[in-house]
């Protein structure tokens, strides 16, 4: 091959690299391993460095990161080689399979979140929230009257608010956080906080504490102030709980970890993003649309790419390029496995498990249910035992000795019993 190139050595191919910058030797890394030895090495590592059993994602830990039941088919079908090893489907004729799957994903996510359209995924719910707020700014600003301020309820997941804060700091936008009151949003303070520079009111339903928040009046508040209502949600209970979109949210975002993925320390999720149809040209990320081929067959393609960075460069609606495509495929397969009936069944099973856990907590001496608002999959307790659940104080300094308890369709009576015993 070198002869065909007209070179004497591989080194010659690197002749544009200044010689003093070339490494004389290969980098000092651990030696190469065969596939078999690699497995042995990782086995050794996991054996010698076990994780604390309390770091396992299982009842009562959750907050959106609890394990959920899913079919083996999710992994089997999503890892079919033409899906797993494809790039972003820029060449539509070579990518009809994954384009159609993304289109079906968009259809299901829009329906699930109660919106007219959805995109083909973002990195995670937290970055999705930041993108939603920026989009709200673009939509609500009028000429020189820029709206670059968001009002955020403290009941929105704290890790998502933290990411939104970083994005807002970098962009020079203002984020105003309204402290929670009794586990729900403080509507009076929200009302006072919305001003003529506010682009988005950011709420959650169910909120981070599991609480159900009626978004209808706050949608009116937001719209009355010329702002959009952006809502975070938890997809796994939307078979029984009214969707934020149906309650008036203009943009709905969520983590999709519960849709056929694993907790994986938060590193195996995707961002769901759905909104009103009239925002279509301001949406961040990939969009798949339908069209026809030259012979009139239905076909799918990436569309409205003039929103995107590879066309618009610094004027793009977002800088996002690679998203979480394969996870969107997984979520689609999972939602097909469930169907409307399965979604309702896991919702009911989750509710029943959460109510059983609530009853158990009521029987624990020294433990109180912190908030009396109606809730879905999660609730908050106060008490002294570190086994009670996810400690909230790290994110809510005034919620000392408060713990988040989350149930799912996988929560068993044995787990609830063991929890009760561990706490006592």
């Amino acid at each position, binding site marked *: *091959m070198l002869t065909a*190139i007209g*070179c004497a050595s591989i080194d010659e191919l690197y002749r544009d*690299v200044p010689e003093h*910058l070339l490494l004389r030797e290969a980098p000092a890394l651990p*030696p*190469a391993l065969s596939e078999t030895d*690699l*497995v042995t090495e990782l086995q050794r590592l*996991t054996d*010698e460095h076990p994780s604390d059993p*309390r770091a396992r994602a299982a009842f009562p830990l959750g907050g959106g*990161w609890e394990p959920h*039941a899913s079919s083996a088919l999710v992994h089997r*079908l999503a890892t079919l080689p033409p*899906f797993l090893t*494809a*790039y972003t*489907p820029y*060449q*539509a*004729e*070579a990518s*009809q*399979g994954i384009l159609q799957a993304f289109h079906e994903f968009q259809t299901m996510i*829009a329906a*699930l979140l109660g919106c007219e359209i959805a995109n083909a995924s973002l990195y995670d719910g*937290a970055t999705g929230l930041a993108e939603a707020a920026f989009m709200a700014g673009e939509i609500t600003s009028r000429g020189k009257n820029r709206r670059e301020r968001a009002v955020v309820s403290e009941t929105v997941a704290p890790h*998502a608010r933290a*990411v939104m804060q970083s*994005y807002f*700091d*970098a962009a020079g936008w203002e984020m105003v956080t309204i402290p929670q009151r009794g586990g729900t949003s403080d509507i009076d303070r929200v009302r006072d906080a919305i001003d003529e520079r506010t682009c988005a009111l950011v709420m959650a339903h169910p909120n981070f504490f599991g609480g159900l928040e*009626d978004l209808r009046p706050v949608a009116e508040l937001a719209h009355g102030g010329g702002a959009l209502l952006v809502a975070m949600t938890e997809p796994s209970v*939307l078979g029984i709980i*009214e969707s934020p979109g149906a309650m008036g949210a203009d943009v709905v975002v969520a983590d999709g970890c519960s849709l056929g993925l*694993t*907790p994986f*320390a938060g590193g195996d999720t995707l961002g769901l993003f759905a909104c009103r149809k009239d925002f279509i040209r301001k949406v961040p990320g990939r*969009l798949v*649309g339908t*069209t026809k*081929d030259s012979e009139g*067959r239905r076909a799918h393609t990436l*569309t409205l790419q003039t929103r995107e960075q*590879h066309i618009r460069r*610094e004027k793009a609606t977002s800088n996002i*390029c*690679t*998203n979480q495509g394969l996870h969107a495929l997984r979520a689609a397969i999972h*939602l097909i496995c469930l*169907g409307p009936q399965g*979604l*309702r069944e*896991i919702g009911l099973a989750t509710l*029943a498990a959460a*109510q*059983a856990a609530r009853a158990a907590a009521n029987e624990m001496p020294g433990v109180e249910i912190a908030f009396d608002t109606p809730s879905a999959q999660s609730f908050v307790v106060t008490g002294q035992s570190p086994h009670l659940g*996810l400690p909230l104080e790290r994110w809510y300094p005034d919620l000392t000795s408060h713990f988040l308890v989350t149930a799912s*369709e996988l929560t068993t009576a044995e787990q609830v019993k063991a929890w009760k015993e561990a706490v006592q």
Partner: protein
Amino acid sequence: MSQIKSTAPSIFERSVPGRRAWLPPAPQFDTSRALDAIPESMRRAEPPALPEVSQLDMVRHFNTLAARNMGIDTTFYPLGSCTMKLNPWINETMATWPAFTALHPAAMDDARDCALLRVLHDLSQWLAALAGFDAVTLQPAAGAHGELTALMMIQKMLCERGETERRTVLIPDTAHGTNPASAARCGFRVKAVKSGDDGLVDLDSLRGLVGPDTAALMITNPNTLGLFEKNIEEICRIVHGAGGQVYLDGANFNAVVGVTRPGDWGADVMHINLHKTFSTPHGGGGPGAGPVCVKGHLEPYLPKPVIAERGGEIVFDHDRPHSIGKIHGWHGNVAVAVRAWAYIRSLGGEGLRRVAQMAVLNANYLRAKVAEFLPIPHGKPCMHEFVASGKPLRAHGVKTLDLAKALIDEGFHPPTIYFPLVVDEALMIEPTESESRETLDAFADTLRALCERATTDPDSITSAPQRAPVTRVDEATAARVPCLCWLPPESE
């Protein structure tokens, strides 16, 4: 691909009320009164319109769709700047181990020395060593996310130094679109740096642009023409001389990994695409990962928490007063990081160096073959990729787009086309180290035959593809009348 000239039914068209693909676990508690605790107004009024199909119908549906798609596992996929290399299956299987998948993200915040932390720490150390930097964050979920993270760090540092007048980011005209889009998200002004006729950054243009307003230069090296910016040290000196930072876009790191280190060139910060150089699959557009490597002066600004060693144990350090904050809900796409760990562990330092060398050898070999029948405007040797021009075919009414579609008919995924913008009718070709000489020969022979046919029978090229699931897709209509959700036929 099979499924030639056919329509695959939508999963919604396969739906029949009452059918089910799978049953969730039996409820563990009595659900008969579960809804009582939910106020009527909070109950879902209409169930979401999800499809209802049997398991076999669902399995056939996705196998049908898979047969309508190309992947690196099925097809040579020389998509320039995307580094479509082999994705070892063993890495996929390791990323499903319960030791990793079962971990709760918030509980991980306080974890000590568990296997996942060890893996993340190893990977950070290895990336720093390979790229020549002092510290790494694994939080960014993709390359563009890494760019944004790096610019946030630069912005924070400038702000703390009181250099708030530095509001301009310089970006060569050959750069990926994510560079200017990321800069804009941080409120920076973007100025384009011209490339010279040789395809490299024009030093005089750069000198004329830097100044007291310069925050950073974002430079891709090797650049998107597949050329090594041989003046990279001088470029860094010019930017540093004006008080700016040098951001190295590592999208093309595959050409030089183990051979030379961007940190030694003078760059202050760099992102790496684990889904390119480090073999994690693209999955039809992610999940990827875009770790960012920094020199010491930017280390305080890394997103928090930072993976740290404390008394021999690996932990997350949350006490980071200068940090830009969090840029991912948790710790990034750590499932991707596990795969990249396995890849580096499989190859070792010598193996990775060989990866770069073979990628460059393959690219130059293919370049030499393609140069026999298509102009390649920029010099040789190339690095991991090269950019040919389809301009001569225009005389016959054939565009690069047509050539790309004709390649699909021949069983090849097309190269990246019409990028970078500085080459007319561009075909950006990156074969990677994974491909055999026989595959490269077959691709070159096919491309040559198509170019010849473009002169004798141009219609056969402009009407391609004819052996794909669909013929030429009408993208204009898709954008004019956007339809992002499946609609029942009566409402179409």
